[in-house]
Every structure is written in structure tokens, then in C-alpha cells.
């Protein structure tokens, strides 16, 4: 009798890889998803900057004195913003003119503006914002309006100083403190605002769990559907009467699923690396993310790939086991659907919390769930803690071996054909 294992693996791999759902879901999705996400972030950032450049602000001088006229001139001559002076007219006509010019806001320098400044009082300015939509791009435009108002305030200060203290440097008076950010991250000093670094880490920390959850859930549904279809169509029944060891049948399914999982993991890592690199484009060229450990070394990707591969293999084994007990394909998909809970819960916890800060009971539950480890490893590895990654690999390997042992026992008995587990209420 031939072992037939290789024969079974080749068939399984062919059947799975030729399934468009598997190819798209497991391989193409992570390859495309990450770069698309990275590009989306880059494009939206660039787009926001572009939008700010094309924002038009109208300005009307009701005061028409030297200081107010000088202020209008200063704002209108600024190269970074488009400020359009309009003639003095009634308010409703001024607003209409702003709308006609596709302006975002109308700034009015009130009567007495110059006189108040000369007397060291505050000059009146009214800003009319023309909100067209309630979305993010409109919000960006309003922030441009605020920037212009701040610029106006700075310019007005300079005008006051010219009169009150001609020898003083207006830029020093308006901004007397010179701030130099020095951030120490993982024992390395970098001249960078700490909020920028934290922003990157938070962004990575929330993206990883989502992607891991999506891939796991998809892979388990594929494996469960595959075995359930084979059982429903009685192809499994035929296989079990062939001169081949039943453990080989299980082994071939797991190996083929693991090959698919491996391809998925490689695609995931390639896509994720591309995604990480997209952050580089958003920062000044002087910032070296790699030196801060925010662009991880190759070891990180190798270990992360291994963690995902083993976790995915155990996930697929559980999915196959559950599907074997299901009555039909829909039943298998429903049963495996319940596994989304232990996949989603650790991901959601780790997205927003450090596991060490959680109550002990919750920590124990999370550490027991194998699907906690891909996310935990990914985050720990980014912080340079490779020990967590190694512990994850050890735990996942033990868990997977136990699952495989039970799966082997089920395949060796007639339970594989006769066992039925239904989620529907028995009548």
C-alpha cells in the first residue's frame, strides 16, 4: 500500500489554489490591502496639503486706515495662501461675492481697527465661515482659516511693535521661546516631536490587529468550507475507502492548508512591509525611522511570519475539525463563525490597551487564546521585544500539536462520517 500522502497533498493544493476565493482572499488580498492602505494614507495627507494651498479667503477692510490697509496688504502678499481683498460693501453683498469667488471664508476688519491698535487696544475682526459640506476636507479648509487669523494676529502685533518699540524684533516678541524637541525613544536620541513618533506607533498598533483578524477569519472559512464541501459531496467518503492511511488524509489537508497559509503569511509580510515604508514618505527626510526601530529589522519579519504561520495552521486545524462535525457547508461556516470571537476579542483588547495593564483574570484568558499571539508578537517586536515573539512561537507550537493530536483521533474513527453537531435547536 502506498502512503499516498504526496498524492493527496498535490490534489489538495491544486483544488485549493485553483479556487479563486482562496487565491484572492489569502494571497492577493494582503498583497493589495496593505499597499492600498499605505497609499490611501499618503494620498489623503498630500491631498489635505494640496487643498490647503487652494483655499481662498476674502478680506474686506471696513476701517480703511493705514494699519488695516497694511495688514490686508501683508496677508494678500503671502505666497502660501490665497487672500483676496474685496471692496467695502454691505455684509450680504460681501458674503455673496465671497461665494461667487468660491471662497471658504470672509474676514472683516471692523471700523476702528487701526485706532484701537494705535491705542494699544484690541482691533475688531469678524470671520464669516462658509461651510458647504460637513466632511474632513471642509474641516481642513477651516483650519486654514484659523491659520490665516493667527497670521493676521502676528502681523498686527508687528504693526503695533513698529510704532511702540521700533528696535524690537517682532518675530522674537511674538514667539520669544525657541523650542527644540529632543525625543528619547528606546535609548536613542532624535530631534523630533514626540507626538509624531507616538502617532506612528499607534497607527501601526491599530492596523496590525485588524489585518490579522481579517486574514484568520477568511482562512478558517476557506478551510472549513473545503472539508465541508468534500464531506457533503461524499468525496471524503470515497477517500476513506482508499488504500491510504487516514492520518495521511488529515495530514494532507493540514499541509495543503498550511501551504496556503504560508503563501498568505508571505503575502501578508510583503504587504505589511510596503505599508510600513509608506510612513517614510510622510516624514521629513532627516528623520531616520529605521534607527528608532520603527522600521524593524529582517529578523522581525521572519519571526512575525513564523508566528502567523503556526497560528494560522492551528486555526485551520480547528476549522477543519469543526467542519467535520457539521451537517453541511452552511453548518460548517456557522460553527467556524463562532471562532471569530476568540480572534476578535484579543485583537480589540490589544488595539487599545497594553495587556500588562489588564486585570489578571483577563490576562490569563488572553494569554490562553492562541490568536492573541500574532498581534501581541507584532506589537512587541515593533518595540524591540523579540523574546515575546519566541515565547509566542513556543506556545503556538504546543497548542497546534495538541489540536493535531485530537484531529488525528477523530479522523481514525467513524465519527468523521457519523458525528453531527448542529447549532439549531433540536425539536
Amino acid at each position: 500500500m502506498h502512503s499516498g500522502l504526496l498524492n493527496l497533498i498535490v490534489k489538495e493544493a491544486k483544488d485549493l489554489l485553483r479556487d479563486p476565493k482562496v487565491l484572492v482572499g489569502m494571497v492577493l488580498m494582503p498583497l493589495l490591502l496593505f499597499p492600498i492602505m499605505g497609499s490611501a494614507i499618503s494620498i489623503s495627507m498630500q491631498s489635505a496639503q494640496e487643498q490647503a494651498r487652494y483655499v481662498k479667503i476674502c478680506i474686506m477692510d471696513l476701517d480703511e486706515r493705514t494699519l488695516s490697509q497694511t495688514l490686508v496688504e501683508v496677508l494678500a502678499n503671502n505666497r502660501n495662501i490665497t487672500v483676496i481683498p474685496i471692496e467695502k460693501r454691505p455684509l450680504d453683498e460681501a458674503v455673496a461675492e465671497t461665494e461667487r469667488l468660491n471662497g471658504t471664508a470672509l474676514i472683516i476688519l471692523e471700523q476702528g481697527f487701526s485706532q484701537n491698535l494705535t491705542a494699544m487696544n484690541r482691533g475688531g475682526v469678524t470671520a464669516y465661515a462658509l461651510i458647504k459640506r460637513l466632511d474632513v476636507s471642509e474641516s481642513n479648509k477651516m483650519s486654514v482659516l484659523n491659520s490665516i487669523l493667527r497670521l493676521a494676529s502676528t502681523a498686527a502685533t508687528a504693526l503695533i511693535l513698529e510704532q511702540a518699540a521700533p528696535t524690537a524684533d517682532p518675530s522674537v516678541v511674538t514667539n520669544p521661546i525657541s523650542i527644540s524637541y529632543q525625543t528619547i525613544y528606546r535609548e536613542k536620541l532624535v530631534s523630533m516631536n514626540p507626538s509624531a513618533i507616538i502617532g506612528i506607533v499607534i497607527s501601526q498598533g491599530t492596523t496590525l490587529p485588524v489585518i490579522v483578524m481579517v486574514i484568520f477569519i477568511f482562512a478558517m472559512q476557506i478551510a472549513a468550507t473545503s472539508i465541508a464541501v468534500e464531506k457533503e459531496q461524499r468525496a471524503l467518503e470515497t477517500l476513506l475507502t482508499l488504500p491510504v492511511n487516514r492520518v495521511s488524509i488529515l495530514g494532507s489537508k493540514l499541509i495543503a492548508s498550511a501551504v496556503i497559509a504560508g503563501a498568505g503569511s508571505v503575502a501578508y509580510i510583503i504587504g505589511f512591509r510596503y505599508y510600513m515604508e509608506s510612513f517614510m514618505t510622510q516624514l521629513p527626510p532627516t528623520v531616520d525611522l529605521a534607527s528608532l526601530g520603527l522600521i524593524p529589522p529582517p529578523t522581525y519579519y521572519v519571526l512575525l511570519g513564523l508566528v502567523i504561520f503556526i497560528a494560522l495552521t492551528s486555526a485551520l486545524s480547528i476549522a477543519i475539525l469543526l467542519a467535520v462535525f457539521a451537517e453541511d457547508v452552511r453548518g460548517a461556516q456557522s460553527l467556524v463563525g463562532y471562532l471569530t470571537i476568540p480572534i476578535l476579542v484579543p485583537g480589540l483588547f490589544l488595539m487599545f490597551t497594553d495587556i500588562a495593564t489588564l486585570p489578571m483574570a483577563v490576562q490569563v484568558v488572553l494569554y490562553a487564546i492562541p490568536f492573541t499571539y500574532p498581534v501581541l508578537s507584532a506589537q512587541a517586536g515593533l518595540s524591540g521585544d523579540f523574546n515575546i515573539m519566541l515565547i509566542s512561537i513556543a506556545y503556538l507550537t504546543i497548542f497546534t500539536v495538541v489540536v493535531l493530536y485530537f484531529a488525528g483521533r477523530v479522523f481514525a474513527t467513524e465519527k468523521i462520517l457519523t458525528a453531527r453537531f448542529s447549532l439549531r435547536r433540536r425539536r
Partner: protein
Amino acid sequence: MYAVEAEDLTKSFGSVVALSGVNFKVDQREIYGLIGPNGAGKTTTLRIVATLIKPTSGTARILGNDVVRDASIVRGLISYLPEEAGAYKNISGIEYLNFMAGFYTKDQKEAGEMIQEASRISGLAERLRDKTKTYSKGMLRRLLLSRALMIRPKLAILDEPTGGLDVVHAHHIRNSIREYTKIHDVSVILSSHNMLEVEFLCDRVAMINAGKIVDEGTPDELKKKHGASNLEEAFVKVAHVA
């Protein structure tokens, strides 16, 4: 030595008794039919003979090999065609046959001969190169029957071989079974609801009802014994008496 020898076979699924003391013998090169209504125990009997499930009590032997103790030897002697079975949708007919041949030989030439044989039995010709998801129900059944017979098993176990097929495909399959078994010394045990088919194919028939064999004999013997013009009439009379 008998191709199949079942002694006092009993099978229970929880509180449901599917088979109760079933005894029968199938000679070598014989086509033996099991007929009976749904739930009578036909498929359970075939599944025990095919080593898929174990009897609760009693024994079944294939050419002297016990289906439980010598299951791995038995699997090398038999070929099983489940009722309404399917193939793998994303592989072609020829790939499916090649995959199945791979369990019986490592020799490419021998495997090639098996596939040629299957091609002849199925009559699918060039369509064998297409993925099985493009096959009609009849074509798929022809492919699966050819797979079951191409390895020249000592015993072919066929569960409703023509179930749900149109006249043309059913005719092709019946002729293939008859021709092939006579040429290659294959024994067959099959189940069917189609009494005409059983009468046409089987050397001997067992009538099974409520998990028990209620009568057995050649189609002519059974018709004569129950004063019936065909097996269907004979079965109805036996089933009512039982």
C-alpha cells in the same frame, strides 16, 4: 472463498437500530443486489463492507479478510462508489483519475493504462480534460464509476449507481458495469431502488427491509416464489408480509 461474507451484522446509531442480524454471501464474479425502501439498511450494509463504519456486532469478510481487523487490506481489494458522490470541482476529469490511480500504482505506465480504461468506461473522451465543475450529473457519475472500475478491484461496492440519472446515462452505466465485471472477474455488490436495473444486472438479489434481509435469490427465483411478474411486485408482497 466468498467475495463477501456477512454474518449476523448489526449496527446501531444510538437508539436507532439500522441493521439487525444481516446474513448474506456474495460469490466471486457475482453481481449481488440489495433492494429495499429508503432507510432499510442498504447503505449501512455497504458502508460496513467498505470499511467506512464498524458493525456494532457480527462480522463481514472480503475474500476472507475481516472489514474491521484487516481494514487496510480490504481497502486494497475494494472500490466504493457512494450514492450521489461528487469529485473535486477545480480539477479536471483526467487529473481526478490520475489522482485516484496514484493510490494503486507508482508506475506511470500502469497508471496510464488505468486512465485509458476509465476513459473507455466513461466515454467522456476529450471532456476528461475539462474541470469536473463543468460536468452534468450524468457525466460526473460516469467519471466516478470509471474511477471505481479502472483499478480492477476484487469487489466493487456501488451505492445506487444510476440514482437520479436520465435514461441515456443510466443505460451507459448499467452496460459498463455488466461488461466490465464479466471481462475482468470483478465481484459487485450494489444497492438500487430501480427494480428493472437490478433484474437486468444482478445474478442474485437480497430484499432488505427495516434492517433485516427478508428474502434472497435470483430475480427469477424471487418472482416465481412470490407469484409476481417482476421484482417490484415481488418486493411489495414480501415487504407487506414482513
